């Protein structure tokens, strides 16, 4: 159980290596890239929700900050895209810390309410500040370039994002099986027990919240550059819910579950597109069935069934 969690990482690498050679056209490459981007965001969110047992209903807001930092700063102020990305991440870190500090001193549903509110406020700000953000119509994002090298083709993006995904999976696996990760899981399992062994629970909750927010912000920037266009919908409440759903369907506290959840829920709307008009209904029905029959999420349920356990 100690070593073999990393076997999954090799499987992920193998799949990512083979995919570009099997996928028939750029539509599928694009879909694979979107899956991988969501997977990275969901990994960060699962550390918060699944492992530490805290909730965020406003994660798309953090995505929005990253995305718009990468759109606005280079367009209006001529910043280098990398600098803009880091500025977005720094702004997210500050905002997340300021919000999290007081909230985590409280117990119960305050965090859900506060993150929900925060996400909505960010979304409204992006819609209203139209002289900078283009308002509800959104705005174009300049291409990402580093050391004179432009990231333009789908294939280039595919390899870059695959690399980010593999590093994220590896880092998540490392983190979980470390003193920091054990403290996180312990405060989820029993808050009072973790306190009496010396875990400063507020500090740990804030740390993981800020970390997953920064993860989201960075991936927001990446998405903005990849798509080349941002709209406030990217930062709206429904996107936040979608991300939480990916965590829950894939499996709470499961690294590989995060990947499966992101892949399935990115693919599902595409697969259901043929049911014109009914896709949301079918989407909802599938989610309900998953929750009824696989309450722990796909990967943990299947792992328990086949007696492995992640």
């Amino acid at each position, binding site marked *: 159980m100690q070593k073999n969690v990393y076997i999954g990482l090799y499987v992920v690498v193998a799949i990512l290596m083979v995919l570009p050679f099997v996928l028939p056209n750029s539509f599928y490459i694009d879909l694979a890239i979107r899956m991988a981007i969501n997977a990275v965001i969901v990994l960060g969110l699962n550390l918060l929700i699944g492992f530490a047992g805290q909730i965020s209903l406003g994660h798309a807001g953090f995505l929005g900050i990253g995305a718009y930092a990468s759109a606005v700063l280079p367009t209006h102020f001529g910043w280098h895209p990398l600098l803009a990305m880091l500025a977005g991440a720094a702004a997210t870190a500050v905002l997340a810390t300021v919000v999290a500090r007081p909230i985590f001193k409280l117990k119960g549903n305050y965090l859900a309410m506060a993150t929900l509110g925060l996400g909505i406020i960010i979304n409204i700000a992006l819609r209203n500040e139209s002289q900078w953000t283009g308002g509800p119509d959104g705005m174009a994002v300049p291409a990402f370039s580093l050391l004179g090298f432009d990231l333009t083709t789908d294939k280039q993006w595919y390899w870059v994002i695959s690399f980010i995904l593999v590093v994220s999976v590896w880092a998540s696996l490392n983190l979980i099986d*470390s003193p920091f990760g*054990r403290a996180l899981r312990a405060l989820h399992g029993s808050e009072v027990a973790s306190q009496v062994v*010396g875990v400063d629970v507020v500090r740990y909750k804030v740390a993981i919240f800020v970390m997953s927010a920064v993860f989201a912000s960075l991936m927001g920037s990446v998405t903005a550059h990849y798509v080349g266009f941002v709209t406030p919908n990217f930062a709206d409440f429904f996107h936040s819910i979608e991300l939480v759903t990916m965590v829950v369907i894939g499996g709470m506290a499961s690294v590989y579950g995060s990947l499966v959840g992101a892949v399935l829920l990115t693919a599902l709307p595409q697969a259901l597109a043929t049911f014109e008009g009914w896709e949301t209904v079918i989407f909802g029905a599938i989610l309900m069935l998953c929750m009824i029959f696989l309450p722990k999420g796909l990967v943990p349920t299947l792992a328990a069934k086949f007696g492995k356990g992640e």
Partner: protein
Amino acid sequence: MSMLQVRDLSIHFGGVKAVQNVSFNIDSGIVYAVIGPNGAGKTTLFNLITGVYKPTTGEIRLEGEAIQGHSPNELARRGVARTFQNLQICMNMSAIENVMVGAHLRLDRNLVKAALRFPALKSADRALREEAAELMRFVGLEQYIDARADAMSYGALKRLEIGRALAMQPRLIFLDEPAAGLNPKETIEIDHLVRKIADSGVTVVLVEHDMKMVMNLSDRILVLDYGKKLAEGTGEEIRKNPDVIAAYLGAHA
């Protein structure tokens, strides 16, 4: 020298005075038992001393230093460990990981080093895993070293909590009803385990209903009733104390 000094400790929950003006001293290296009928305030007293509750009034000194009102994680840093009457096991973790969490403060908790799998961190973790396995043997859980916490019996989980507390390498350990819900054989084993812990130099404070075990183990006993100190002394003194007999047997002395 006194390990712990408690002076006029009280806590009120609204109108309920759960602990009232309780004072006592615990000497270093002894086994000290707190007994009393249900609802006497024993667990509340533990929660006050270990920082889970903040006292309304009163003073608690650990080796001379005032610690009342400190949070549990600050007290952990000063070598105070405890177990819980209602089990507080992290069921989302394996058995051995529960013990490893006990060593939290002795480890490098850096997030970045952890995510990047720094070799020093990894080797410290491997050493800790061996140490935790050793502790599990010490508390009699050798067959559960590779088990998941949610696959263990109640009696085993009680020991797992003790293992976790010992992983802190505490100076002072509070055991809240370690033998509650155990069968006579398991109770004797816990009795031996508490003795082993005390012999290793850790000061033990015990809440327990099993009188045989209390009389057997304790150097001194504190009796609480309705949140007040009823008596304090050696087992022999407590056994003969008319107030204690009255409280336990309901006789009007």
